[in-house]
């Protein structure tokens, strides 16, 4: 680990990805993710010895397909976009899951619907977590809440994508992308040989040929293929839950929040404790699989879900607990982020209720 540097989220994450051996980046400019593309483009120009390859694609449609092609050839590849671009990429998400392609996709959320604003939001939760594409598929969804976590998780994302031969979504937002923080950049990691990856397109020669195809061959075959994918998703559910708990043991009220919203809730939690309110927090780090059990375990307490949306994750919280009447919600639309005071007021209101 290096000394800490003061860096913008997008750029630090890009650097961490490069150090994870992701030399191939395909993207289309979109606020607030553009800097990832630009950082990669500069790295390609300034660090020729690292053989970085960046293509500014014509559209997000094309960028996602380029990522699919590159990742299918056994190499680590990534794109970074925001809501409108992530929407365009949904057919690709379905396709890459079906084809078992280990790509990494970053969505830096901004308020929708439509072109909306370029401020922070968490309105792509449904799309990322439930799958905005067609058919039955799931992808791991990771939600860091600091630039340090963005860097650490992006490196892990490639490993997880390869572990399960499935795309991984990194869900951040404008705040995380554009803010600057001190970060200890992770180092260069081991990168598996592209030819060694299962089903990689490498030029088969006389060996078994690898075929990336997502068309089925009748109900029986396609049913069995889907069963195989579902088994895989089940393993992901069992093994990849991540979250962090803060002072929940003695809490009377537990907040549930992720990403930049969790930072605000953390401050509100401290302010509440100072006022004698026993507040705690569960911060999901994997949004899929959702930390259902951790939330169920505090289901007898009052739960306050805070999101920069009209309420998307709150539904998964409600599904996790026995008594939905214990689940409260505080949301904000349009791009403004509630202050810690706003959240504290809400905590006091819920506790008083």
């Amino acid at each position, binding site marked *: 680990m290096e000394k800490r540097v003061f860096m913008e989220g997008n750029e630090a994450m890009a650097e961490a990805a490069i150090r994870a051996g992701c030399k*191939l980046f395909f993207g289309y400019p979109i606020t607030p993710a553009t800097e990832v593309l630009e950082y990669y483009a500069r790295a390609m120009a300034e660090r020729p010895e690292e053989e970085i390859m960046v293509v500014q694609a*014509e559209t997000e449609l094309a960028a996602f397909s380029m990522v699919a092609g590159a990742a299918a050839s056994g190499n680590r590849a990534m794109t970074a976009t925001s809501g409108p671009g992530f929407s365009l990429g949904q057919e690709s998400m379905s396709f890459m899951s079906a084809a078992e392609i280990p790509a990494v996709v970053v969505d830096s959320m901004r308020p929708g619907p439509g072109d909306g604003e370029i401020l922070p939001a968490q309105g792509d939760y449904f799309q990322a977590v439930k799958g905005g594409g067609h058919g039955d598929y799931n992808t791991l969804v990771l939600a860091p809440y600091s630039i340090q976590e963005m860097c650490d998780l992006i490196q892990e994302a490639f490993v997880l994508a390869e572990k399960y031969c499935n795309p991984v979504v990194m869900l951040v937002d404008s705040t995380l992308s554009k803010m600057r923080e001190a970060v200890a950049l992770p180092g260069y990691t081991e990168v598996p040989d*592209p030819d060694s990856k299962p089903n990689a*397109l490498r*030029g088969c020669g006389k060996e078994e040929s*690898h075929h990336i*195809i997502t*068309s089925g061959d009748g109900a029986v075959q396609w049913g069995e293929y889907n069963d195989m994918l579902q088994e895989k998703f089940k393993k992901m559910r069992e093994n990849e839950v991540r979250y962090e708990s803060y002072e929940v043991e003695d809490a009377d009220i537990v907040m549930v929040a992720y990403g930049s919203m969790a930072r605000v809730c953390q401050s509100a939690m401290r302010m509440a404790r100072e006022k004698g309110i026993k507040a705690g927090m569960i911060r999901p780090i994997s949004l899929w699989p959702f930390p259902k059990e951790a939330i169920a375990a505090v289901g007898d307490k009052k739960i306050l879900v805070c999101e920069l949306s009209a309420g998307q994750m709150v539904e998964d919280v409600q599904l996790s607990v026995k008594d939905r009447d214990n689940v409260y919600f505080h949301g904000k639309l349009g791009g403004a982020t509630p202050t810690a005071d706003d959240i504290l007021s809400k905590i006091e209101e819920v506790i008083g209720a």
Partner: protein
Amino acid sequence: MKTVYEKPAVFKEAVTNYCAGCGHGIVSKLIAELIDEMDLQEKGIMVWPVGCSVLSDRYFKMDTFVAMHGRAPATATGIKRARPDKLVMVYQGDGDLVSEGMAEIMHAAIRGEKLSIVFINNAIFGMTGGQMAATTLIGQTASTAPLGRKTETSGYPMRMAETLATMPGVSYSARCTINTPARIRECKKMIKKIYEMQMSDQHGLCFLEILSPCPTGWNTTPVNALDWIDEKMVETYPLGLFKDEESE
């Protein structure tokens, strides 16, 4: 005893899903012959479209990627940029290249991507049952143009080979057909050329448009379909070499 011809070794056993007389069959066979002759099983990675040839990957003992509809040039870009030493062999039809994938082919050409693209033009959407394509001739009937394509509502046939030839990122652009033995032999030479040009690593996009019979889509017999190419298609889609960097 001398073998004059045997089925290419790279072909798998399966009977193709193509209709009797389909041009895809002839062109797939030529590509398979070239794979055998030029020893491309290790060098080549094939990118297939969505269309009648969507199942073609299962006929070849090659590493293949059946791309999302229209996205083949983008997917191929990803593969070629990741593995520049490979011969990335792209194959697309009308729906895939001219409609769904117009942005992708144009930008692969704009960027001068080092790809070899075989474009099968049969002036119709075959797989989905014979709808009008952007390449359908004026007056030609299709399921979505029962009275024949009208320019007032549906515009004009798109000439891809000529259009791409105007672009600096395109190194080779030609149009041929496969309705006689001589033309089939010529077509094979041109496919070989676009593969060799990519392998030389000295050129950008290499494009070959092939006018191809679609008896089912044209509602006729295979033999009549071959004639229709000469009677009707060539007038709108002239055969010829529109650009060849190597001969400039």
